[in-house]
């Protein structure tokens, strides 16, 4: 929900509630005052009537407001107040009246004095209050809406432009000017906090990047020394067979460590999003090209390769990562396919499927994507290929799935 909508809604609800309470209070207050005044007026009317009778003995008669009768022989009775309905011939409806009546002795005569006046109709009062308050309420809401709209355009402007800047922020383009100009304290603070955060993010990213590169350098250089020494050592003429065996096994271990380091660094770099350059990659061409890499192995294992590759499938992604994903998946399929088996490679604009014949795994397939997981523990593989594929997929927002059906291992990447 937009900020403006939310404020408007809150204003609307709270002012509606306030107006209802306000209306009720006014209603009870007004009716209390009216009634008090009415009672006072009736009492003073009664006193005027008594004074008139006392002065000249005339009996005022203004029905239905004042009615006086002689009631000889009755004892005096105190003032009684009642509400009553009297039919009005002009308006042709019952109208509520308040009347006070008393039997009063004046100059030895007893009189029944009834004084009445119209009661304010409660319905009318209520209606009037509702209409008045309603009009004020609607006017208030309309003006609040426009004031808010203007305010949010003007006041919140720095906030929205900062937000836009933030959306465009990325670690490989740290030059972006983050905070927008503003004079409001809260926004100035927000911008300061964001600026600090930005500097920290950039420096963290840079130091992480430097760390992986330094680690790579520090490990690869000694490995290069070992490898080159072994390659020099093996050039000596008349090496004995057991000496050569020692060199051979040391050499292959160096190779493994070197590959492992490269792979781990690659994983770290993917996780740190150190492959920011994206462009439109023709996955179909890339796939065809990479399959050629494995031709010799495919022929060597007498595999049948079936390709259903839709031409010109383009993806917006990092070229190196797309390449890495394809090589890993295709390489796995070739490596794990049983001799004489079938490899199926299908690509269309929405997904890539790579299948190879093989026996089902004895382990949980959910573990396949874990680092250093190997189906066959004694295998010389690193157990990192599928972790890389998974990292690449999650970085790009693709979905990777594994299935075993019809005696085939099936990997599906949905773009």
């Amino acid at each position, binding site marked *: 929900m937009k900020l403006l909508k939310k404020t408007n809604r809150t204003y609307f609800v709270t002012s509606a509630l306030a107006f209802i309470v306000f209306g009720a209070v006014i209603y009870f207050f007004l009716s209390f005052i009216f009634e008090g005044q009415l009672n006072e007026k009736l009492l003073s009317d009664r006193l005027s009537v008594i004074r008139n009778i006392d002065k000249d003995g005339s009996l005022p008669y203004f029905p239905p407001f004042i009615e006086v009768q002689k009631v000889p022989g009755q004892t005096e009775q105190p003032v009684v107040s009642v509400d009553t309905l009297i039919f009005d011939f002009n308006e042709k409806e019952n109208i509520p009246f308040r009347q006070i009546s008393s039997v009063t002795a004046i100059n030895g005569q007893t009189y029944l004095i009834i004084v009445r006046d119209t009661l304010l109709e409660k319905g009318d009062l209520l209606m009037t209050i509702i209409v008045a308050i309603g009009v004020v309420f609607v006017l208030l809401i309309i003006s609040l809406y426009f004031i808010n709209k203007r305010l949010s355009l003007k006041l919140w402007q720095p906030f929205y432009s900062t937000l836009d800047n933030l959306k465009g922020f990325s670690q490989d383009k740290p030059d972006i000017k983050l905070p927008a100009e503003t004079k409001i304290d809260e926004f100035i603070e927000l911008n300061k906090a964001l600026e600090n955060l930005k500097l920290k993010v950039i420096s963290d990213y840079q130091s992480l990047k430097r760390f992986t590169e330094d680690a790579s350098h520090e490990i*690869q*250089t000694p490995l290069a020394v070992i*490898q*080159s020494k072994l390659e020099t050592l*093996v050039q000596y003429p008349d090496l004995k067979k057991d000496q050569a065996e020692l060199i051979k096994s040391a050499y292959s271990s160096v190779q493994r460590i070197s590959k492992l380091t490269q792979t781990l660094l690659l994983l770290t770099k993917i996780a740190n999003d150190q492959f920011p350059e994206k462009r439109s990659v023709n996955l179909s061409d890339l796939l065809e090209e990479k399959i050629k890499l494995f031709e*010799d*192995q495919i022929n060597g294992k007498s595999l049948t390769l079936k390709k259903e590759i839709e031409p010109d499938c383009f993806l917006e992604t990092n070229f190196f990562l797309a390449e890495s994903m394809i090589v890993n998946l295709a390489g796995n399929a070739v490596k794990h396919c049983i001799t004489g088996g079938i490899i199926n490679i299908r690509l269309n604009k929405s997904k890539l499927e790579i299948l190879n014949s093989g026996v089902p795994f004895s382990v949980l397939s959910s573990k396949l994507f874990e680092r250093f997981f190997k189906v066959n523990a004694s295998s010389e593989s690193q157990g990192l290929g599928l972790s890389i594929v998974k990292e690449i997929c999650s970085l790009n927002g693709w979905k990777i799935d594994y299935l075993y059906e019809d005696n085939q291992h099936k990997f599906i990447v949905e773009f």
Partner: protein
Amino acid sequence: MKILIIEDEQELLATMKNYLESEGFLCETAISYFEAEDSLSVYNYDIIVLDLTLPGGNGLDLIKLIKDRNRQAGLLIVSAKNSLDDKIKGLDMGADDYISKPFHLAELNSRIKSLARRRHFNGTNEVSFNEIKINVDSNEVSVNGENIDLTKKEYLILLYFMVNRNKLITRESIAEHVWGNDISYADNFDFIYSQIKNLRKKIGQKNGRDYIHNMYGMGYKFSDR
């Protein structure tokens, strides 16, 4: 042919120097940015091997100096950072080739010789070994004067052998040279055997001698001894 090797790791530097000298190159070395600056401002080199990570300065800055002082020199960059940025920057600034650590000495040798050939420093575009001749411009291979048809991979393997003659070349090195780094996904190197078998057969058909010797199950040596 004179080569300057700029590398701060002395052990590696010594091995590279020995290997390249045994291949008949004249090698000079520099172990820091300043030494490299000195050598570059005084002498001319045909080929320069430059490690980008140097004490005292960034190797990328040296490229500028090399391009100013030694314009005609072939430049091969070595880096352990395996960083794409450095590679692209280096090649943009005028480096001719890039190799990342750890590398095979045979690969280094092959790249340097390829640089040398491209620049025609030795006045020829032909690599030959007794009856076998390769024209590296037209990619034609002849045995005893008769052309033979090789696949691209067989051609690359043969050229790699002939450039690194009399040296043991490991299977890993051949595989990476011919199939690229992606080949590490292979289980075994059977596919190299079959390529080499075909190569032997094709050379044998034109009465060429078999110079490819299997060494300790570790690799091959191309030699007439």
